[in-house]
């Protein structure tokens, strides 16, 4: 088997011998999620003298931003060629953070637990217990319990999906899924791709696809370009962001990729479906797009038929709050139709000892996630009276950065709202919940007879959201179908953050025999 590798290009250190023993010892802080927010937070906390668990379900640190190709995709590929700069921005920062973490692993202050998925957490008298499954020897699963005085949840966000007729065909992915495919070394060369949705993440995905030899035949942005002009101040205060966007624009122009604003993908059809509906038949072959009225209704006579074998759709992201909700963490309207963890200026949640950073506090990009991670870590250092606090000037500057990026993110969200009339694209037989095969018609009928007031109730009455993904995929869409527009989506509480085998749980209840 190939040696596990890090993004930095060098072989990752093998699991230290004493890891099992270290897992049993209480630490000062558990950081769940080793994306930009979690890595930055852990590094700051470690530098300040704390003992830290950094836990991630993935095989390497980095999160969404610095996602790693799986081992099998790397075989036969020269390591120097990966990762490519167009996919992994700011690798210098990654390498610096990684080096800090490695140094602290050597001193024994950091216990880095990869392939560990946290399935629940609980508050105890003197801190928290964090319950994870160790999947490093998959398919074997082993339950692990970590203890610490403070808990930082930096579990990121996931794609918000809006269903449309044909969205469940093979070849239709989320924009995030497409990006992950690219970063994971997936093959896209030669594909004919149409991208749709709203928000600035469509552009980097388009640029990256084009750079890898895919033909991006259209990018359909539902928002109007003029929307940006309504909130110019925060946008102008973030020149780096403009530069990034401009960079993508150049790439798109070079590849002659048309970006159509006020346009959406309203349906997709499978292979061999000339003229008739053939959902679930072959791979996607054709998409239909339409220009949108101001409320998002497709304008008659503007429909276009575009041949494509790959479709990427992105409607923004939903904060991953599964671990925060059962702890009783207060929520705040994130301004983009979702809710996020409510935090103070120090990233403290409403629960004592519990902190949140990165996209759990609202979507806003990697730089913001890192700043929030550092601010959160400083709060932990302060609250635990740790020796190594950074200077107040640095902290003040960091907090200003957070405020500026948050304002930018809000402005962006307002410029890229969900088209209010998108449910009009759905036919009654469009599947909304893929796990349980619940249609839009079924959801509409429980809404119409007055028995369903929210997505939780729809779930009870139709089974939408009861399947494998537990509504992580369909929840936001079902919410939009039944709730008033101004009410942001709040996910259902999920006590189990990831599926775990009953055997692993059963064994965790028994006295443990061997831990190494």
């Amino acid at each position, binding site marked *: 088997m190939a040696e596990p590798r890090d993004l930095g290009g060098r072989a990752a250190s093998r699991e230290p011998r004493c890891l099992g023993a270290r897992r049993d010892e209480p630490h000062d802080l558990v950081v769940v999620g080793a994306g930009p927010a979690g890595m930055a937070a852990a590094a700051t906390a470690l530098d300040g003298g704390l003992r830290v668990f950094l836990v991630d379900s993935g095989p390497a640190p980095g999160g969404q931003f610095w996602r790693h190709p799986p081992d099998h995709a790397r075989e036969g590929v020269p390591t120097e060629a990966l990762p490519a700069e167009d996919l992994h921005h700011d690798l210098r920062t990654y390498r610096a953070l990684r080096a800090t973490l490695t140094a602290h692993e050597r001193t024994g202050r950091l216990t880095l637990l990869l392939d560990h998925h946290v399935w629940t957490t*609980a508050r105890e008298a003197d801190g928290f217990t964090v319950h994870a499954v160790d999947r490093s020897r998959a398919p074997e699963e082993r339950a692990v319990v970590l203890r610490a005085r403070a808990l930082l949840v930096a579990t990121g966000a996931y794609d918000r999906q809006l269903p449309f007729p044909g969205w469940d065909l093979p070849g239709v992915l989320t924009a995030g899924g497409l990006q992950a495919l690219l970063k994971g070394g997936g093959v896209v060369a030669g594909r004919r791709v149409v991208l749709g949705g709203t928000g600035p993440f469509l552009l980097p995905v388009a640029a990256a696809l084009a750079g890898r030899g895919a033909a991006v035949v259209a990018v359909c942005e539902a928002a109007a370009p003029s929307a940006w002009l309504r909130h110019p101040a925060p946008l102008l205060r973030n020149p780096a962001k403009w530069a990034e966007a401009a960079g993508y624009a150049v790439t798109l122009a070079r590849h002659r990729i048309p970006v159509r604003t006020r346009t959406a993908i309203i349906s997709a059809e499978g292979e061999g479906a000339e003229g008739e509906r053939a959902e679930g038949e072959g791979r996607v072959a054709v998409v239909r797009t339409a220009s949108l009225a101001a409320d998002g209704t497709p304008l008659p006579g503007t429909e276009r038929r575009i041949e494509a074998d790959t479709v990427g759709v992105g409607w923004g992201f939903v904060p991953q709050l599964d671990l925060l909700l059962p702890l009783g963490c207060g929520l705040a309207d994130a301004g983009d139709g979702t809710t996020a963890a409510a935090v103070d200026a120090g990233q403290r949640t409403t629960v004592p000892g519990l902190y949140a950073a990165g996209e759990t506090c609202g979507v806003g990009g990697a730089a913001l996630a890192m700043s929030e991670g550092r601010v959160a870590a400083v709060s932990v250092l302060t609250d635990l009276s740790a020796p190594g606090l950074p200077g107040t000037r640095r902290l003040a500057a960091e907090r200003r950065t957070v405020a500026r990026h948050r304002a930018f993110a809000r402005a962006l969200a307002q410029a890229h709202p969900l088209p209010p009339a998108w449910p009009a694209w759905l036919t009654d037989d469009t599947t909304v919940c893929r796990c349980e095969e619940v249609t839009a018609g079924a959801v509409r009928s429980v809404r119409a007879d007055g028995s*369903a007031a929210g997505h939780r109730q729809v779930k*009870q009455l139709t089974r939408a959201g*009861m399947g494998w993904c537990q509504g992580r995929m369909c929840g936001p869409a079902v919410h939009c179908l039944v709730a008033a527009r101004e009410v942001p989506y709040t996910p259902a509480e999920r006590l189990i953050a990831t599926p775990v085998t*009953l055997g692993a*749980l059963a064994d965790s*209840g028994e006295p443990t025999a061997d831990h190494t």
Partner: protein
Amino acid sequence: MEVVILGAGIVGAACAFHAASAGLDVTVLDRGPVGAGTTSRGEGNILLSDKEPGPELELARLSRDLWDEAADELGPETFEFEAKGGLVVAGAPEGLAALHAFAARQAAADVRTELVDRVGEFEPHIAPGLPGGVHYPQDAQVQPVLAAAALLRAAVRRGARVRTGEAVAAVTGTGGRITGVRTADGVVLPADAVVNAAGTWGGEVGRRLGAPVEILPRRGFVLVTEPLPPMIRHKVYSADYVANVASSDEGLETSCVVEGTRAGIILIGASRERVGFDTAMNPAVVALLAAQACRLFPFLRDVHLIRAYRGFRPYCPDHLPVVGPDPRVPGVLHACGHEGAGIGLAPGTGALITAQMLGRPWRGADPAAHTGLLPERFLTTGGVPK
């Protein structure tokens, strides 16, 4: 006769269904949507197998017949009614003797029981080596929220109204008799009779109506697995469960009931803890339930848990529901405190409440036959709590 039913859980829905069927003028008031209280937090077991002979078993037998009637009237599909039967297994030979003795007393109280020597013939995937068990063919299952919604819809077809709002106080007339209910938005719903079907919140609602009853919460967790092809045919549980249900010890008890549902998922439930309304996750309980389920069905070791949820069973200090008119406030009737059996007991409760309001038997519910559930048992002769 104008009736206001407080609570649109399974019990309130069943009361509305029977009262409207009997021609009464019914309004159901709930602060939230139908079935969103404890009804959406439990399982849908309709059990005779776990009940000692006594007033609760009598209500359960009546209810069981009425579930059949409801399935005939509304269609078994509308609420996933399945008369699949229960299998109680003993873990050890001593346990089997105790289980047989228990079953013999139930049989004497007209519960159908069948002794089973080879449990593996009933449940091919059950753990080998179990000494035996008892089959209860009358045990059945429903999907509680669908059942509450179906009963309420049928009540509405018979003229009932459903309103959203919170009951805050009683309006009373001469002799302290109730004449209506005031809601949080100041609306007064006129009523000749008010039914307290507020489940776990029945204690608070009783207080607001001037007729307090003691209803306490008992927390329970339920585990849900990924969907599987059918592997488990009955409701299967170990005989310890019978002891736990009747127990009034503090603290945690678990003894799991394992069952497959129509959707292919397997439900494993439920724990019993007295921790007030503490909503905190308890990973140790989840681990214990998982261990017990795996002991009954070893194949479950490789099956994924995808969800867990918890709820608070409403219970009275003597673990019997309180069903009937409150002597302190004429016109108030209680229908709450069903603990871990409110789904199963709902239709019988609805029929009994209706019979009590009519002053004559209704659909097999004879008020004279269920006096053990009346609120009197908590009151001294002067009408104050004992």
